[in-house]
Every structure is written in structure tokens, then in C-alpha cells.
């Protein structure tokens, strides 16, 4: 996978994960153009398209578009499953996830993605294990904060 974008129906970016080196300017241009292209597609069209020299796989969940750019040899159908798995993870974590959750907790959305994919490939195929890791890391964050506060009270 080269990159993954999440955006709203109005074209606002909610998450952008880049697995290839590109400058900020280049990323902005690609995002803008691709988002426009996808928003222009009709609902009956298929989830795959060729865009520039990339294969694009996208799917809409409620008000959010999930869009991935994959390599030539990548299986488009399993990419749809990857997207779906990510959505399930978000759903489990936030409890019936909606766009607002992603907006207000974008950093958590990234953390979850980074426990599921690494360098553009799936690192863990068990939903349970991804969620467990996130849970533990979150706990670590809180424990440290707790301890930090304790130390300062002394």
C-alpha cells in the first residue's frame, strides 16, 4: 500500500497515512486531486479505479470514504477486506464509531491503524490482538501520567 486517506463527503481529510516518501506539497496535490475524482464517482460504480499509475481501492462507510492506493500486484478484493477490518477495529474501540469520533480522536485512529498495518502491510490478522495491544498502550499512557502526577505531589 502506498497511502490511505479518510475523507468526508465534503472532501475534508480526516486521516492521511503515507507509506511512500513525498513532500508536503506533493501529498496535498495528490489528496486534493484524488478526493475530487472519487467524490465525482456515482454510487453504482465499482470500488476500483486506475488513477495516474496507481490502483485505487475505496469504500464509503456512512459519511466517510476510506481510500487506499495499492501496488500493481496487490489483490484489490483483499484490500477491501483490509479496509473493512480497520473499520471494525475503529468500531470496536470507539463503540459504534462515527465520523465525529475520528475527528475528535484522530490521534487514536492513527494509533489503531499503526497497530494493524506497518509499512503498508497487515502486521496482525487477529482483531483481538490489535485491540489488546491498543488497550495496553493506552493503559501505559495513563499509568505513566498517574505516576507522574504522584511524583509531583510528593
Amino acid at each position, binding site marked *: 500500500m502506498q497511502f490511505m486517506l479518510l475523507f468526508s463527503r465534503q472532501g475534508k481529510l480526516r486521516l492521511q497515512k503515507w507509506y511512500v516518501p513525498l513532500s508536503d506539497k506533493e501529498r496535498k496535490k495528490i489528496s486534493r486531486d484524488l478526493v475530487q475524482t472519487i467524490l465525482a464517482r456515482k454510487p453504482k460504480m465499482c470500488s476500483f*479505479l486506475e488513477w495516474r499509475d496507481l490502483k485505487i481501492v475505496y469504500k464509503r462507510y456512512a459519511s466517510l470514504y476510506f481510500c487506499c492506493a495499492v501496488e500493481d500486484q496487490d489483490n484489490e478484493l483483499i484490500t477491501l477486506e483490509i479496509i473493512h477490518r480497520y473499520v471494525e477495529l475503529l468500531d470496536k474501540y470507539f463503540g459504534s464509531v462515527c465520523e465525529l469520533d475520528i475527528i*475528535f480522536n484522530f490521534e487514536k485512529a492513527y494509533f489503531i491503524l499503526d497497530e494493524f498495518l506497518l509499512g503498508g502491510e497487515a*502486521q496482525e*490478522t487477529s482483531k483481538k490482538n490489535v485491540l489488546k495491544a491498543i488497550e495496553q498502550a493506552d493503559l501505559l499512557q495513563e499509568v505513566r501520567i498517574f505516576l507522574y502526577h504522584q511524583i509531583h505531589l510528593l
Partner: protein
Amino acid sequence: MPAPIRLRELIRTIRTARTQAEEREMIQKECAAIRSSFREEDNTYRCRNVAKLLYMHMLGYPAHFGQLECLKLIASQKFTDKRIGYLGAMLLLDERQDVHLLMTNCIKNDLNHSTQYVQGLALCTLGCMGSSEMCRDLAGEVEKLLKTSNSYLRKKAALCAVHVIRKVPELMEMFLPATKNLLSEKNHGVLHTSVVLLTEMCERSPDMLAHFRKLVPQLVRILKNLIMSGYSPEHDVSGISDPFLQVRILRLLRILGRSDDDSSEAMNDILAQVATNTETSKNVGNAILYETVLTIMDIKSESGLRVLAINILGRFLLNNDKNIRYVALTSLLKTVQTDHNAVQRHRSTIVDCLKDLDVSIKRRAMELSFALVNGNNIRGMMKELLYFLDSCDPEFKADCASGVFLAAEKYAPSKRWHIDTIMRVLTTAGSYVRDDSVPNLIQLITNSVEMHAYTVQRLYKALLDDISQQPLVQVASWCIGEYGDLLVSGQCEEEEPIQDEVLDVLEGLLVSNLSTPVTRGYSLTAIMKLSTRFTSVNRIKKVVSIYGSTSLILYCCNDPISSWISFNFHLTECPLSVCQTFQLQLLSPSSNVVPALNQGTVTQVIRVLNPQKQQLRMRIKLTYTLKGSPVQDLAEVNNFPPQSWQ
């Protein structure tokens, strides 16, 4: 100094902005506050400030002043800081800037941290955005972690190694020892990432490929277990056990089996098993079938297996899910050359896909249809393709028209069918045919001697209906100029026009706004040629004198008593803008006949107006009769003295 506003508070505030200007103002205010907080080296709230900066960056505002702060967060001992710091690094830094190298030491330390979640952050960041230099420096650490028994770290190290190899291929060797028992792992995460690593290594190095071929039996066993094992809640997706791992294994098998008979044979059974037993009601099952088909088609599989694969694709074509139809067409396009007959069996389904609503599916169906045209099915296929040409979007018309011309040229069952097909294309998609079609078609028509009368009559009729499509008009004009005598002489099936009517039509082209200069050239040439075929010479002379000093292109003329020299002007840079760059004026030749026995010459003056000083070259085609037989002579003049055009 009050505490900086919290992240979620900021988000809430920014979202209340009603205009872009209002939002910008809020952002600027907050950025200023963040900047001064950074300047004060505030450790407590650095994390909060960077998080806010990342939010604003996502909205599209500049955040480069936060880059160094991310590095400070990464270096902090607090887990919260590191989490946000690494995230910031991945979002704000890119390997083209030197500043990212400052991360290297921190990452090195964190790779050896006592907490696995910190090690995880480091591995993730390195595997996502590590530059070649960083990868070189840290490859050793990654290799160490690849051998750990901690599966949480091992799986991440494997993917990190993939990234290192992509960035610095020479380092691949050092990971070889660590791959020794990767596949003996029970943990699916490690298995999946190991297969990805092995795939990367095999794709990059023939030596590695040869080395890893021995893993085929083990991979087959793992795959078999996944298929045969009962329900495993942890890895189940709609009744299928770990489809992600299955797909990856199938892909690795493809690479290992390619051009190797033994490996291909060893995987034959499992491929057949997956192909026949996988549940097809959901996307996930079809994803596995798709990968299986790709593997079967790429390795040295026996013909029975190949037919099985093509039939799966055939079934995909009938699936309600358009995504499935799309991948089927893509795959069939890849195999149509090697398994032509098998794909032919699905021709009618493929042709049906021409009517699909989706643009991508239509395009593939069109490409595939052209690939399937042969001498046996040309009539039926062409009917469908011409119907498609009629109704398809403009973006397809040029390619479709070209495809039709090519197929017609190869497989036309008769000359009349061929001409009819060309006519159909010119009338339905005439504005989309490529520029080189016109001379090609003229050549084709010239060679179909027995069809001249039929062709000119049909083209004339087409002109009466529509003069907007330039290629059609050009070909029609040329034909009328050549065969106008056949048009008016009663050789046509329908009521023939009289000479004046024909000249009316051609003159109409000259004055029409719809005609391009090139088209005007064609029609003027046609009128001139008719001076030797028609009797209304006075009228023709009048037209020529009015329009004759404008730009022209003249084409080959077969009339044996014609005095015209035919030529094309070829320009170095702009082939079709003759009329914009040159203007020609042909004066009358000195005589119609060249005296015998070298007793005289015929000269004809051509005046050339060349304001842009383009290099002059001339190609001359002379057609004349010698002792009653037609002769054709070609010559080029390339050595016009530079003074003549500079």
C-alpha cells in the same frame, strides 16, 4: 501563564467557525500561542501543543515549526510524549529533509527499550518512513528483533525488515539467517509478516528465490491447515480462517512456482482444493479465489487446472458484484493471449459487459472484446462493437474507432463489408478518429477498385446528412474528387446527382464554418480534380480563382490525363498545420502533355508563402500515362537552398 487549551477543546472551537476566514484567524491565534510555548521550552505541554499542531496540519495549515518539537517528544521518557512525537514525525517529517536523521539515535535507543510498546513505536516509524541512511544505521537492531521470541515484536520487525530491504536492497543478505524458522511460528501475525518478508526477498533476488523454494511443502501445509481447520474465532472472517494469510501464502506460492516444474507440481493439489472448496457468497471468499486464479495462471500448472481457473473467472463475470466483474475482466485480459481458446468460451458474457454502467468495466470489456475478435466471429463482434461505439462516452470513442479499423483490416470478410464498417465509424464517431486514419482509409479505398462507385455514392450521401465530422468530410471530398465521374454517370444504385449538385456540396464545404483549413484543402482539391472529369469547367475555374490562393493540400490523383503534380508537404514539427505555416499557390502548368523524344518540358510554378521560415521539404508523386499505361513516380526534394526558406 495559563495552561494551553486542550486538543479536543481546540477542535471544538475551530469547528464553530462559520467561514474560512474565521477558521484561519483562530488557527493563526493558536499557532502563535503554540510558537511561544515552544520558545519557552515548555516540557509539560509540548505533547498537547504538538497534537494540536497535527490537527491543524490535517486541515491544511503549515506546521513545519513543530518538526523539531516532535524530535524532543520522541526523546522524552514519557510514553504519551513518544506516542505523539512519533506520530508527528511520520506526519510532518519526510526523508528528503536532513532533520529526520536526528531521529536515528532516538529510534536506536527505543528499539532497545524495556517496554515493548515503545519498541513497537520505533519499529513502526522506521518501517513507515525510514530513509536509506537510517535503515543502514539501524538494520542490525531490526535483525536482532527479528530473532526475538516475542511475537509482538517479531511481526513488526519482519515488516520493518521489508522496508529496509526496499530502501537498501544490498542489506537483504543479513536478514537471511533470521528467516530460518519464521514459518514454524504459530502466531498468525508473525506468519503473515514473515510471508510478506519472504515474498519481498524472493521477488528481489533469484538466489533467494532458489533458496526458498524448499519452503513450498511447508507453505502448502500451513495453507491446508487453514482450510481444513475448524472454526477459529480469532481469525475467522465470514467462515474463512485468516483470509489475509491465505492470500499472502498463495501469492508467495505463485512466485515460487513460476518457471519451476517441481514446485508447481507440489502446489497443484492445494490450488485445486482452494479453487473448488472456497465459499463464494462473500467478497472474502472471492478474494481468495482471485488470488488462486492468479497463481494458477502464472505457475506451470496442468491444463485442467488452468481451465478451472478460467471458469472461475467466467463465473466471476456473472457475479452481481461489480467489483468481482472488474477483477475478472482484468485477469482475463492478462490471460487472453496465452489461453485464448478458453477465454473465447466466455465471449458473450464479456460482450455483455460492454453495456455495464461502470466506466472501468466498460473499458476492460472493450479491450478484451478486441482481443477476442477473429475471422470466425468478426461479423457478430463488430456488430456489438459498433453499437458500443454509437453509445459510449467520448473518452472511449477514439480507442474504439481505432480498434474497429484494425480488426476490420485484419479480418474483413468482404471488401463491401469493410467499406460499410468504415462508413459506420466515420458517421457515428467521425470526429474522434485519429488523424492518420484519413490517409490510411484513402489508401484502402484506392485499393478496392470494384468498390469505388459504391463508396463514393455512400460517402456523398453521408455528406448530405452531416458535414461536421472532419475526417468523414475529408475522406468523402477526396473520393468525390477521384470518382466523381462514377457518382454522376449512372453507376450508382440510387438516383444520381447532377454535376452542379455535387459542386454545390463541395463548395458548401469551402464556405462552411464547420470546415477546418485541412478540410477546405481537401474540398478545393476535389473541385480542381473534377475539372478533368466534369464538364462544368467554367464554374470550377471560377471557384478555384476565388479560393485558389488559400492554403492547400493536394493528394494523389489517378487520372491518366491529369496535368496535376501531386505532393504532400511534410513539416518537421507540425504535421497537420500546413495551412497555418505555409500557404501555397499553384499556377497553371505550361502544358498538358510532355513532348516525346525530349523535345520539351512541362513546368508548373508553385508559390510558397512561409512566414515562419519553416524548413522546406517536398515529396512529389507524379502519375502520368506512358504509351497508354499509367506510371507512378515518387521523388523527394530535401535540398532546397536555405536562402529559400530562411
